[in-house]
């Protein structure tokens, strides 16, 4: 059970840091609402509701990217990562804790963003909300992993979207499918499959990203 205790301690550190410094979450909130306003003006007046549903997913992925880009910045600036790697805990716990913290930020942003979307565009059904939750799991699992790589490179913030977007395309397909199709079962199942596959892959290979 020490593994879970490690994860909890690390995730708690990130949440506390955010509660005190408020670096990421207000930025994500402001960004997602601003994106909706941009979308309103980029959709011609007689566009279908389906177009707005598709844009919701663009907003979610870009908002997540904003949060993911910041995820490992505290570790880099204070060289915390070196300490964490030396600590006698399983290194995948670092990834899991960071993914949980990022998930919490993204979910918090969406708790505001989804009602705002419903207010600006059209109401959302249960399938869309379920798809958003499943997609968040995949986005945070893969995004945190890639964020840890990107932060160690010379290109840093520039690299994360390039690494992440090709891997996010299946998430977009599953999410948009679940929000626009009558029977969303297979799209939700696809999102769950994505979460499972990439979750296991990230969990198993994170050691190689932080250790030399």
């Amino acid at each position, binding site marked *: 059970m020490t593994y879970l205790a490690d994860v909890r301690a690390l995730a708690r550190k990130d949440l506390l840091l955010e509660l005190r410094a408020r670096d990421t979450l207000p930025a994500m909130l402001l960004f997602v609402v601003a994106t909706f306003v941009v979308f309103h003006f980029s959709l011609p007046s007689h566009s279908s509701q389906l177009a707005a549903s598709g844009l919701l997913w663009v907003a979610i992925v870009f908002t997540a990217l904003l949060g993911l880009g910041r995820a490992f910045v505290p570790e880099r600036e204070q060289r915390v990562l070196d300490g964490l790697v030396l600590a006698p805990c399983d290194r995948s716990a670092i990834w899991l804790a960071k993914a949980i913290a990022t998930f919490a930020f993204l979910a918090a942003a969406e708790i505001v963003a989804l009602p705002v979307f419903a207010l600006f565009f059209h109401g959302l059904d249960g399938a869309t909300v379920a798809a958003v939750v499943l997609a968040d799991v995949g986005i945070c699992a893969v995004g945190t992993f890639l964020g840890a790589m990107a932060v160690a490179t*010379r*290109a840093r913030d520039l690299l994360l979207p390039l690494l992440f977007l090709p891997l996010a395309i299946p998430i977009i397909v599953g999410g948009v499918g679940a929000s626009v199709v009558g029977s969303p079962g297979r799209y939700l199942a696809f999102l769950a499959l994505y979460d499972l596959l990439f979750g296991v892959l990230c969990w198993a290979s994170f050691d190689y990203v932080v250790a030399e």
Partner: protein
Amino acid sequence: MEPVTRSHRVSLPVLAVASLVLVTLALALVFFVVPNDANQGFSQRIFYFHVSIAFTAYACFAGGAWKALLHLWKRDPRADLESYVAIHQGVIFGVLVLITGSIWAKISWGHWWLWSEDQLVLFLVLFLFYAAYFMLRFSVDPGPQRANFSAVYALFGVVLIPVSFLAIRIAKSFIHPVVFTLHGPNFGGWILVTYCVAQAALLVLAYTLYRIELAGKLIDVRLRELRFA
């Protein structure tokens, strides 16, 4: 970690001659032997190269991922460079898939790009993914960390291929419900022989190019070592 030369069973000149002979034979079969397709006529002959190139690209990506796994698992000092070279060849063949696919789409359906064509869309996603692989690799200094990052990202690639394929398949039901059938059920005789020869030709060609690039890269590494020795 310094890459060490691996002793190969087949020498480079033999490979070069074999690919020349096979590619010439494949071209001869494609242009002079195989009959015209009943529906698409002469232009369908691009199929033999388009599909073989696509399969070869997959083989390169799979080979690159296998070498990446060897790097992470067995700490094989040669595996990092080999993985990179295999993926580089895969990207070159992947671009050729996009080009030949576009030409075929233009001639058959009148458009240079079709979102309803699974293989094309998949290769576009893979092209973006592996282009990011190079961005990642060249923004980390050479060393164990670069090798690890490259290897892990290459492994993501082989998981992404089937997942994206599935995604593109299920996306069709809300983006493009039209499904094209590429060729009829009669896939035998000269058609099968020609396809197999073209496939063999491209696989041997890809392996030859891989070996040439690898040899060049190893000479480069050796030169660098001598300069700093």
